[in-house]
């Protein structure tokens, strides 16, 4: 009966994981609003946002996740993280017997520290490569969402989802390649990514290690090896009789698998009550042990029979010596300096980042955006104007705008409000409507209104700011005229301009996004100077016709 209770615990966590996966898929593929909560609960983007925007909400999420981890261990990794859940699914689908991941503390801490230091310096490189939520977003946006759109549009032709273009390199870089790599890792060493590469997991692990409610092998353990065989994190060491809570992903497979119910989850005192050796020191044992790991380790190891000591030993075995920490810190600082140098204005990375492309409102500048965007693809998936493109279409290595299928919708500010990392700064609607992301350029030699002398005006018709107007140019001729002070580079002129292959109106990139003049003010002033003529009543009783 105890077995069945533990089994239900595991089923419960699977159900929660399934719910998370469903919500995240529904959000990324279909824009289902509740799903956004799940994405906002992702640790990597929330931490980046908290730092970049000093956002209290994001900081709250981070704090909540930290507390959650401190109490329950890395449950984040088993029920919230989509990449973690995906690895479980891959493992379950392939059911391949493979060795468990080893323990590589130096690699793990190294990656996490580099990620954090660079992020603090303003470069989200680590997150761009390894943040699980962002990489999951990329995979879903390229591999799942297009299929979802195709099927949905076939079923509901009167409520069509936007069909977004997908360049082959995008599909490969954001979708196929990461999925293949992840699958290969799972087939090779189960959830090696989570215990070694993932910076989020490493940070959470450091807290999970000190949870007052660890997962432990109790003295009912007969060392049959069942748990070790199925543990995807490789955190059970039977020889030591230990379970490393820093790497334990809380998949709860071992609870279910152990026929002797020798894996316990709770306060060490309660778990070892049968043996009668539990003491209150046991609970403080772990933190003390880490204070000077190097010295404690041998002493603790000898007392491994004691449950408290097991825990302490397990934790201490993955600790670094003081020297290693110092050397590591020095190395990382050096790397950060190199990174900062590369990133400085005019530096290699900034220069290459995307000259010649238009970036979404809120990006600030090409350089800022290049350093901060983690490529989660939420903005691309949600762009109402269907103008945002992922890297891969040759124009930029970043998310950028192309006006071949639409324009940046004047009333829309979805990208800057949805961006989970803060790479796109949230703005008020008024600020978005004046945010200059590019600058229109008019080529009269291509314009049909200029060349053929017939009405066109597609550009002026669409321009939301009034920057573009059709001006009288001789009898019966109306040609475009551009007021650059009002232009925000939204592409509402480029998109409808009928001239091909090159359009007569084209938006060119700007180095830094600034606020354009306020059209309301501009036109009110003009109306005051020259009021619009009133239509004259011609007929009887003031009729106009």
């Amino acid at each position: 009966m105890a077995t069945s209770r533990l089994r239900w615990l595991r089923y419960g966590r699977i159900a929660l994981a399934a719910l998370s996966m469903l919500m995240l898929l529904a959000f990324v593929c279909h824009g289902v609003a509740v799903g956004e909560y799940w994405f906002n609960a992702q640790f990597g983007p929330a931490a980046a946002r908290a730092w970049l925007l000093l956002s209290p909400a994001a900081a709250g999420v981070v704090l909540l996740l930290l507390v959650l981890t401190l109490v329950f261990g890395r449950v984040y990794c088993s029920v919230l993280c989509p990449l973690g859940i995906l690895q479980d699914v891959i493992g379950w689908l392939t059911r391949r017997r493979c060795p468990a991941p080893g323990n590589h503390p130096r690699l793990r801490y190294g990656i996490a520290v580099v990620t954090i230091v660079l992020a603090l310096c303003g470069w989200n490189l680590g997150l761009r490569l390894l943040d699980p939520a962002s990489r999951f977003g990329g995979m879903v946006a390229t591999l799942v969402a297009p299929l979802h759109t195709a099927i949905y549009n076939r079923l509901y032709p009167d409520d069509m989802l936007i069909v977004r273009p997908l360049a082959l390199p995008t599909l490969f870089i954001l979708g196929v390649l990461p999925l293949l790599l992840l699958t290969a890792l799972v087939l090779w060493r189960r959830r090696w990514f989570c215990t070694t590469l993932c910076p989020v997991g490493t940070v959470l692990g450091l807290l999970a290690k000190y949870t007052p409610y660890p997962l432990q092998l109790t003295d009912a353990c007969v060392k049959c090896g069942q748990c070790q065989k199925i543990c995807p994190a490789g955190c059970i060491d039977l020889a030591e009789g230990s379970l490393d809570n820093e790497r334990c992903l809380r998949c709860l497979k071992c609870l279910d698998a152990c026929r002797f119910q020798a894996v316990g989850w709770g306060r060490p005192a309660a778990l070892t009550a049968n043996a009668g050796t539990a003491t209150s020191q046991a609970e403080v044992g772990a933190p003390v042990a880490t204070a000077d790991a190097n010295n404690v380790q041998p002493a603790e190891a000898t007392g491994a029979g004691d449950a408290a000591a097991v825990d302490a030993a397990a934790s201490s075995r993955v600790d670094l010596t003081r020297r290693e920490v110092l050397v590591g810190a020095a190395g990382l600082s050096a790397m950060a300096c190199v990174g900062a140098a590369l990133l400085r204005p005019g530096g290699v990375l900034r220069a290459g980042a995307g000259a010649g492309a238009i970036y979404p409102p809120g990006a600030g500048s090409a350089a800022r955006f290049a350093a901060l965007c983690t490529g989660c693809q939420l903005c691309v998936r949600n762009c109402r104007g269907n103008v945002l493109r992922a890297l891969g279409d040759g124009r930029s290595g970043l998310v950028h705008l192309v006006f071949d299928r639409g324009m940046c919708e004047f009333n829309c500010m979805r990208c800057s409000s949805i961006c989970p990392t803060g790479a796109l700064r949230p703005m008020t609607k008024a600020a978005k409507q004046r945010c200059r992301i590019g600058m229109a350029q008019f080529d009269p030699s291509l314009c049909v209104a200029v060349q053929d002398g017939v009405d066109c005006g597609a550009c002026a018709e669409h321009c939301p700011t009034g920057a573009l107007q059709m001006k009288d140019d001789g009898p019966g001729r109306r040609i475009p005229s551009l007021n650059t002070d009002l232009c925000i580079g939204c592409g509402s002129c480029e998109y409808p301009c009928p001239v091909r292959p090159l359009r007569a109106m084209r938006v060119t990139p700007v180095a830094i996004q600034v606020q354009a003049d306020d059209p309301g003010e501009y036109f009110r002033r003009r109306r005051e100077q020259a009021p619009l003529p009133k239509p004259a009543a011609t007929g009887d009783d003031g009729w106009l016709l």
Partner: protein
Amino acid sequence: MDRRNFLKSSVATAAATAVLAELTSTQVHAQEAKAEAGAGDGRAEVVAVRNGSAVAMFRKGIAALGGMTAFVKPGQKVVVKPNIGWDRTPEQAANTNPELVAEIVRQALAAGAAQVQVFDHTCNEWKSCYRNSGIEAAVVAAGGKMLSAHDEKLHYVEKSCPQAISMKTAKIHQAIVDADVFINVPVLKHHGGAKMTAAMKNFLGIFWDRSFMHKNNLPQCIADCALYRRPDLNVVDAYRIVVANGPRGKVAEDIRELRYQLLSRDIVAIDAMATKVIGYELAQVPYIALAANAGLGVADFSRISVTRLEA
């Protein structure tokens, strides 16, 4: 249709028919005959209504044209084509008044229409336009159906029209091809490119390829549009009109509240009259003369009889 709606609409139909039969039976026949003759003798009739809500003006105006039953017969498929081109609110007057569209849907259903469909091939992203114009909600509440018009393959069929001068083939919305009755409900506005947009310019939203029209002599293409499918009724909403910075409008000063509405079977005559309402010379809007020359209707003011009504 569920039973309640069915009952409601049958009661409404019965009531409407009874009232009309009593009040206007002779008038209806007289006017139908006149309209038919009108095409031949080069005359047209436009009803102008002013100083009421869009709904009140429509009720007055349609009654003067013989009521909705003169246009919609029981069991027919009706398409109503408002202007929903822009992601703007009703107050910004860039789209047709949603209450007016809803009233037309209601009356068409009351006249026995099997279904009333509403769509526009919008300029801004279509879902935002449908939602923020208020038209989607109003139409659905009135019992009509909003259609999407944003997939070339799913929603459009290729048609050709040899009489057309510039646009000889075009992809036209399937619903228009299938409709028994086509009611064209534009909003009157200034237009940067075509000078004025009203009944004829509204036709751009039933075709797929705007770009072609802009590129190949826009006024001629606008005139060609109506050759593909004559509307059975045109209603020009001029309650609030954009008089500058059209067709989108940029600031509140671009909008004027006129409280007018025009109704006509003749798409050219109604546009000709609309130039007076917005205050332009006929010659400033070249597509009107082009359409008149193509025999689509009457642009000569002396041959248009106007019925003026106060709502």
